[in-house]
C-alpha cells in the first residue's frame, strides 16, 4: 500500500527544535549530512524515521498525523511552520502527448468513417415508393442537381421519335444500322422510351420529371429493327461508331438469351474491354427470361461479358422483378453488377394513332438499363476526371443493398446519386 509522505518545513534547525519534532511526532530525525550512497534517504524514511535536509530546513517523513501537523503549524511555539503531502511529478514529454492525441483522433476518424459507411450503405427497407416517377426517387434523383450536361450518351435501340414534344429544340445526333429504317423514327417505341429514361426531362402535360440526364448530349444508334430484333452486325457496327465518335456511355436495352454454364462471348468481352480502353462505358440489360419464383435464367449476352455492365430490374416494392435474369453462371461469368427500377416505368413514347398521350408505362431490364446509363452521365459530369472504368466502380460502390435480396439477383444493389 502506498504511504503518504510529508514535507515538513521548520522555522529553524536548532537542536531543541529537532528534539521538539522528535517528541511531538514520535520520530527519529536523521540529518541529511549522514546520507551517502550506502545510506540513501529512501532506505531511512518511514513512519518512525525522518530525514532533515539541512540546506532546506525541511523534514521528510511518512504517515504523519495530519491533524497534529495542522495544529503544530498554528502553534507559534512549535518549530513546524508548514507542511504538505508529497506530490508526484512526471516528465512532460510533448511528443508522447501529441502522439496520444493523434491516436485518439485516428480512432475518432475510424468511428466517424464506420458511422458514415453505415448510414450510406444501410439496406433500404422493403417499403413502397409510390409516385409515377418512382424510379427516379428510388435512385435519389430528388437529391442531386447534376443533369449530365456535356456528356455524350448513346442509346443503341429501335431508334428515336424525334418529333416527341419533350425533345423539341434538343440537338440529337443519330445513325441507323438497320437497312431501310431511319434512326429518327421509332414505330416500335422501345428506343424512345429508353432514351427518355436516360436523357429525358419532364412531362409536357404535368411537369413531372421522368428523365435522368436531361442536359446530356443524346446520341441514337438504331441497331434493332422496328420489330425489336437485331443482329451481331448491327450492334458491333454501332459500338464501333460510338467509340470512334468518343461517346462516353453506350446504353443497350437488348439481349440474347444464353444457356446455363454457357461461356460469355469472346467477341463482346473484347468489345467491352476495347470500349473501356477508349474511356467508353457499355451498360446492358441482364435480360427478361426468368419467371420467378422459379429458378431465374442466367444473365443474357452481351451483359454476361465481364467488361460490360449488367443491370437487373426491381419494382417499386423494392423486390426483384419476376422476369429479371440472375448471376447463376458465376463460374463462367455473367454476374449482375447493379440493379435499377424496371417495373412500371413511365417515359416518353411515340404518340400512335388513336392515342392521347406521349408517355407509356413499360417494364423490363430494358427500362432498368437506361437508369444506370443516365446516372453514369451524372457521375461523369460530377467527376469529370474519372475514367469510364472508375465511373463503373463508383456506380457499384455507391449502390445500396436491398434487404433480403441476394447478390445473385441485384449485384452490388440499387444505384444511387451522390449528393
Amino acid at each position: 500500500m502506498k504511504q503518504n509522505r510529508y514535507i515538513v518545513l521548520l522555522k529553524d534547525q536548532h537542536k531543541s527544535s529537532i528534539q521538539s519534532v522528535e517528541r511531538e511526532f514520535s520520530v527519529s530525525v536523521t540529518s541529511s549530512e549522514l546520507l551517502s550512497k550506502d545510506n540513501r534517504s529512501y532506505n531511512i524514511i518511514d513512519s518512525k524515521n525522518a530525514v532533515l535536509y539541512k540546506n532546506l530546513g525541511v523534514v521528510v517523513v511518512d504517515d504523519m498525523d495530519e491533524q497534529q501537523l495542522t495544529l503544530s503549524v498554528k502553534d507559534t511555539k512549535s518549530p513546524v511552520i508548514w507542511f504538505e503531502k508529497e506530490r508526484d511529478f512526471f516528465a512532460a514529454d510533448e511528443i508522447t502527448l501529441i502522439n496520444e492525441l493523434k491516436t485518439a483522433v485516428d480512432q475518432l476518424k475510424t468511428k466517424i468513417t464506420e458511422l458514415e459507411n453505415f448510414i450510406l450503405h444501410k439496406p433500404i427497407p422493403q417499403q413502397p415508393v409510390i409516385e409515377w416517377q418512382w424510379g427516379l426517387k428510388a435512385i435519389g434523383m430528388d437529391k442531386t442537381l447534376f443533369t449530365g450536361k456535356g456528356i455524350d450518351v448513346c442509346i443503341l435501340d429501335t431508334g428515336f421519335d424525334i418529333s416527341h414534344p419533350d425533345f423539341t429544340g434538343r440537338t440529337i445526333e443519330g445513325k441507323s444500322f438497320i437497312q431501310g429504317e431511319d434512326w429518327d423514327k421509332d414505330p416500335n417505341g422501345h428506343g424512345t422510351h429508353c432514351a427518355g429514361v436516360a436523357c429525358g426531362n419532364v412531362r409536357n402535360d404535368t411537369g413531372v420529371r421522368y428523365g435522368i440526364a436531361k442536359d446530356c448530349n443524346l446520341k441514337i444508334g438504331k441497331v434493332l429493327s422496328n420489330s425489336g430484333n437485331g443482329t451481331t452486325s448491327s450492334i458491333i457496327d454501332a459500338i464501333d461508331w460510338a467509340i470512334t465518335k468518343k461517346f462516353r456511355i453506350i446504353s443497350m436495352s437488348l439481349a440474347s438469351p444464353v444457356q446455363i454454364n454457357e461461356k460469355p462471348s469472346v467477341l463482346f468481352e473484347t468489345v467491352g474491354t476495347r470500349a473501356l480502353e477508349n474511356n467508353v462505358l457499355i451498360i446492358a440489360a441482364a435480360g427478361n427470361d426468368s419467371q420467378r419464383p422459379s429458378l431465374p435464367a442466367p444473365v443474357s449476352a452481351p451483359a454476361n461479358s465481364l467488361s460490360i455492365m449488367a443491370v437487373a430490374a426491381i419494382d417499386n416494392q423494392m423486390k426483384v422483378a419476376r422476369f429479371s435474369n440472375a448471376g447463376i453462371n458465376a463460374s463462367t461469368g455473367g454476374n449482375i453488377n447493379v440493379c435499377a427500377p424496371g417495373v412500371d416505368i413511365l417515359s416518353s413514347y411515340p404518340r400512335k394513332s388513336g392515342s392521347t398521350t406521349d408517355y407509356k408505362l413499360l417494364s423490363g431490364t430494358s427500362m432498368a438499363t437506361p437508369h444506370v446509363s443516365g446516372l453514369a452521365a451524372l457521375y461523369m459530369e460530377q467527376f469529370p476526371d474519372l475514367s469510364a472504368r472508375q465511373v463503373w466502380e463508383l456506380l457499384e460502390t455507391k449502390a445500396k443493398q436491398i434487404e433480403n435480396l441476394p447478390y445473385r439477383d441485384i449485384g452490388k444493389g440499387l444505384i444511387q446519386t451522390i449528393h
Partner: protein
Amino acid sequence: MIIYFGVLKEGINYVKIKKKLTEAGLIIRNYYPALKIVKFESEKKITQADFDFFVAIEEEKNDFSIQM
C-alpha cells in the same frame, strides 16, 4: 453465306493478315480498328483453328431483342 467476327490477337497487324483471309476465299465485310475485329463472310463453316491470328471467331447471331 455465313457472317463471322474474328477477334485479332494482340500485336497482329490487320493489313498483313487481310491478304491471307482473301486468299482463303473469305469476303471481308468490315474491319473495326477501334475494336481490332474483322467481319467477314464465308460459304463454308469456319473455326478458330483455321486461322491462328484470331483469339476467337464467332458466328453472327440474329436473336438480339428488346427486353420489355
